[in-house]
């Protein structure tokens, strides 16, 4: 089975396993994090065709051939080449969270939100980010960061 992750094609053997563990164990992409294994916390979030998806409860086979973006591939989605951080990452770099185990959820949710809504209201930011848990308690930082990321994205050509 073939997976397309961060614009690269991979042949994978364990198609029946959850996408999260195929990313980890076969592809060595460990930036996507395990925390609950039941789609309750958001730490394992990836984008599948631009939609936030909990990779811990998504069978790898179900996303074969579709465009998967992990936290490792977000920077390349910037407009000025692979080294440029996405506006969401830039905004989090200005105001990071703490342990950041939960960061894939917050980054992916924000990237997807800004793709479909470049100027989200506070309520829309809350609705988009609301499912991601952060035990360090950085929720208010996330709200501010997503608003700032929207600003940065609008400033960039």
């Amino acid at each position: 089975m073939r997976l397309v992750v961060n614009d690269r094609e991979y042949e994978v053997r364990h198609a029946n396993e959850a996408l999260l563990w195929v990313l980890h164990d076969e592809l060595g992409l460990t930036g996507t994090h395990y925390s609950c294994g039941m789609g309750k916390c958001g730490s394992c979030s990836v984008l599948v065709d631009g939609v936030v998806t909990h990779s811990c409860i998504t069978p790898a086979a179900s996303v074969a051939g579709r465009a998967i973006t992990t936290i490792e591939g977000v920077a390349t989605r910037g407009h000025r080449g692979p080294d440029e951080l996405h506006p969401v990452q830039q905004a989090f770099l200005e105001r990071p969270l703490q342990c950041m185990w939960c960061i894939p959820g917050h980054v992916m949710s924000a990237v997807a939100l800004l793709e479909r809504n470049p100027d989200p209201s506070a309520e829309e930011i809350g609705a988009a980010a609301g499912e991601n848990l952060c035990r360090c308690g950085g929720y208010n930082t996330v709200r501010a960061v997503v608003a700032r990321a929207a600003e940065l994205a609008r400033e960039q050509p």
Partner: protein
Amino acid sequence: MFVAAGSAGTLMLGAGWLRAYARPLLADAVFKHGPSAARPPNKPGLWFEVLASGVVTVYVPKVEMGQGIHTVVAQLAAEELGLEPGDLKVVQAHSRHGFSANAMFTYGSSSTHTLYVTVRQAAATLREMLRLEAATQFGLASRDVVAKAGRFMGLGFTVPTLSFGEVIAAKRGVWKVPKTPALKPRAEFRHVGQSYPRVDARAKLTGTAVYGYSARLGGMLYGAVARPPRYGARLVRAVTDRAQKQPGVIAVVADLKAGFVGLAATTRTQANAAITALNLTWEGGTTLSQSELEHALSASRSGGAVLRRRGDTARVLAAPGVIEASYHTPLAAHAHLEPLAALANVTASEVEVWVSTQSPGQVERDLKAAFPGRSIRVHPTYLGGGFGRKTTQHAALEAARLSRATGTPVHVGWTREDDLQHAFYRPPTHTRFRARLEHGQVLALEQHTVSGDVIFGVQPPPGGDATIKALGFDPGVLIGQFAEYHFQAYTVVNHRLKLPIPTGPWRGLGSLANIFALESFMDELAQQARLDPLEFRLRHLPRSALGRRFKQALLTATDESGWTRSRTPGLALGLACCADVNTVVAVVSEVSVQDGRVLVERVTVAVDPGLVVNPAGARLQAVGSVVMGLSSALLERLTVTNGLVTESNFDSYPIIDMANTPPIDVHLIESGEVPFGMGEPVIGPVAASVGNAIFALTGQRLRSLPFDLQGV
């Protein structure tokens, strides 16, 4: 099955008579000095490395679990090296460089406090070594060479200069370590006190940061480990052949003597599936139920260990008009988002592990004991949260057992279910107060605290239970147990609850439970005295430097939250305060009630940690404590069924989310010359401030966590 220790009630007889007086002194000493680490060694070469290429590396002798210590150490080092923090390569100290088992233990809000002077001394000594060598290379007297922005030059000259790397490149012969020079005065600080950006953020934002769960080596396997069905159950029989035949399984290891059964497979999914195919027989262990646990908490008034006795509390409380109340906190989990994890590679001569731990020394000791004759190398990774749970953990040992059996590196990453059900927990507590008031003053206050173990739960003292019984207290339970207020007569009695379920350190140790009880009761007394809760607290502050810091924190939090303003109908404020690790905190919470549910609308924090190295980091620590405290106040409660924690994941054990997190304002107060600590103190008053606000709004006094308006 379990006993409330100290129920013998022989305090006034024989040796007990002595103990009655020795104990309060001992408890005072432990409380005052805290369970603090040994001072880290002061050797520049241990923590710093300067290469001829000019790269200056600082090996941080504490682990980074989100608290920001890597950034703080970079700031402290840069301050004395005369560099920018961004010029430094910040690396986690590990067995090969910068490791010192005691200094590495990261706990108790103590990292910034214990490193504040030491890191600057080490950096200053290194700078001085380089400066003296630069003088030799210039052919100048050492007093004629100065350091400026990472370069050395002759006094009064701007050229020629030597960089750190150039000095190293031209150095011949042996280095001399000079006397530590005087440290920069605070007025000249350029980096300390600045919100320098986190040094670990970029790696974490691009998915390249290595945590215990994401540590990788080529050719590695994935391990899974069987867990007992009840706490304390002993493994007596393991039939492994069916597990051995499961897809991907490479090896099954059953060591009945060590109580260990685990297996290694090609993928984690295979390992976790195969572990259910083991046929295991367990014996013994506890069958504790929730009702038995709750019954055990309701200890009798007699017995216990008197930890503080001032004045004749019993006589004052014999008169009528005694006010009584009791408070409960439940068993609770750390719920760090990264479950326990480690990667191990065991060879004939060496055990090497990458592990998410707050205590690299504990990992090293465990491995040494289990693998005698092999050298031990510990690489602490980033932690996806710790909160005390990662002070003691065994994932590294598990991974090493499986690596030894397979001859390949093995990673063990716990499932959320194992992490929640096979942890140690914040112990349940029950606190009873009796007090009498006169003219708005507390004449006497008697406090009985029943708690499961905290420190001794994970680290029993030499002599075990006998020692604990003789001592009469667990040092962790003491945190927050003594009121800093001045009461004319004051007695504190501690009742140890020896539980058959594992309990241990949780953010703030005893602080959350103790401060919830004390600061709620202070509110009840204020109400009985018909005094404003702020005024009532101010009246009882000691006339001391600490009392003045409390006053400033209380006034700041109340001013900033509009304490004296008239409130919008449907909203009310609650106040609470505490001191922990000498950091003073006041918290005001504003609440409303909608559809029978408590909503926290805003939280205002005033916190005085003495001195702040990184204000942005300190604010995050305060906010993090508020959010975790609110989660405890509103949501979190574990129960026990047949000897095991019932809840197993975030569906049954919800933690607070964004929708329930209010705006949080943090006001930092710097009253001193030394940073005391920011990791835990703010969590203490959070629940009490919410409960006090609920009372102000509804007239209902909620005395159990988590708050439940319906249950009243």
